[in-house]
């Protein structure tokens, strides 16, 4: 997949657990796991905004484009 989700890296940098992030942004851990594993088909702006707010980062820190 051309878009890589670097949520794991950001979580490690902020020393935050997936469960806590899921709780803060208001999604289930299952959905967060889908997002982390790159299985998600799309990300809502509201979710992205909540993640950026919770992790104090930019969208570019979470999403990365890699040419296949």
């Amino acid at each position: 997949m051309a878009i890589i989700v670097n949520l794991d890296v950001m979580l490690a940098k902020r020393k935050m657990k997936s469960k806590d992030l899921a709780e803060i942004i208001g999604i289930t851990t299952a959905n967060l796991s889908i997002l982390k594993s790159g299985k998600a088909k799309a990300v809502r702006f509201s979710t992205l905004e909540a993640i950026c707010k919770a992790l104090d980062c930019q969208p570019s820190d979470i999403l990365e484009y890699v040419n296949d």
Partner: protein
Amino acid sequence: MKTIQLLRTLINILFYTLIAVFAIGFTFFIILYFFPESLSMPLRNFSMLFNQPFGWKIYLIPMLTMINFTLLIIAVFLLKRGTTSFLKSDFYNENVTTSFKKAGSIFIFIGVSTIIVQLFTVLYIQNFVYNMAQVGTNYLLSMLNILAAAIDLKSTFSIIIGLFFLLFSKIFEHSRKLEQENELTI
């Protein structure tokens, strides 16, 4: 929900009625062929079917009717299977799309095969009659008559229903993809 339940009930009634008719017809023909003496006189007259002088061509229409009837039972069974998940409000599973696709193809086959056989039957009968009577005819008028006799409303409707089911199948397949995408949108 009431509409789905009504549809399901009607499909169930149709399916079991078709099964019963098939079973009765099959049993009747078995008895007629092997034990005709056990039948009453008016029913025994049907055994003329097995010893008539016209050859195999006369069997074409009854055989096709039997095949089409069997296929109709299969198509109704597929619709029954397809609508089962509707009751659980699960419209977009693979079972629905495959069942509708197969049922649609069967309805189209029934319609097309009936039209083709009717076309050949009318051609055959017309040739037979003209050869017997030795009369000339207007070619265009004759072809129009043949087409009008062969393409009946029932067969055309069967093809249209089949195409609709194929279309439904495509729509449900597309909807299933959209639902999956929606579920995977975080």
